[in-house]
């Protein structure tokens, strides 16, 4: 099981701030996790498409597509940050 978190525009669009998920065994990194979530279609496909500026953090560190994702991890999806 992994914990998925969504923030800001993504949280609103998905109507979801967090969920527990059990991705298939071929989901091993951020890239394959994102592709798996895109398969939900609709807004998931639109918001997480490759050309969208979505940032991902794994266990609260900024990640890239090759960052490993495994059981027990916390993975967050969010738009580019706009604080300060």
């Amino acid at each position, binding site marked *: 099981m992994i914990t998925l*978190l969504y*923030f*800001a*525009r993504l949280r609103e669009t998905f109507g979801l701030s967090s969920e527990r998920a059990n991705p298939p065994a071929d989901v091993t990194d951020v890239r394959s996790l994102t592709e798996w979530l895109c398969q939900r279609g609709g807004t998931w496909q639109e918001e997480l498409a490759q050309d969208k*500026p979505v940032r991902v*953090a794994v266990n*609260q*560190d*900024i990640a890239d597509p090759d960052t490993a994702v495994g059981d027990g991890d916390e993975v*967050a999806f*969010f*738009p*580019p*940050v*706009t*604080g*300060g």
Partner: protein
Amino acid sequence: MEVRIQTEDFDLGAEILNLRRGNSGIGAVASFVGLVRDLNHSTTVTEMTLEHYPGMTEKALSEIMGEAKQRWNIINTLVIHRIGPLKPTDQIVLVAVSSAHRGDAFAACEFIMDYLKTRAPFWKKEQTEAGAHWVNARESDETAAQRWTAPSA
């Protein structure tokens, strides 16, 4: 090193006094205060809401402050960032750095602020007369952060 995420306002004078209290080795304090503007892309902003990622925010800011401490000869740092609803003229963020000499405090303060803008997980949602929208990230903020990674002469 201290990070505070809070809904309440802050008092710059009191915070700086606290930062330098009891340390006679401090010769300089540089600070930056960010405020809510009433105009963004020529639309009038009536209110904004700051959302953040609890846990990662503190972690990211601590890392940024730790990096500043490695790069410059600084004594102490403080970052306060407000969350929740804010109105134009409200204070949003405070970065304060103390050091023996001014150059280190100036540089570290700007570095922390530039990195905060691009790495700390905060998001602004603006309420305008035309409705609410999430603020888009600015290319200029990324450029400002990148200049700190350029090889030094």
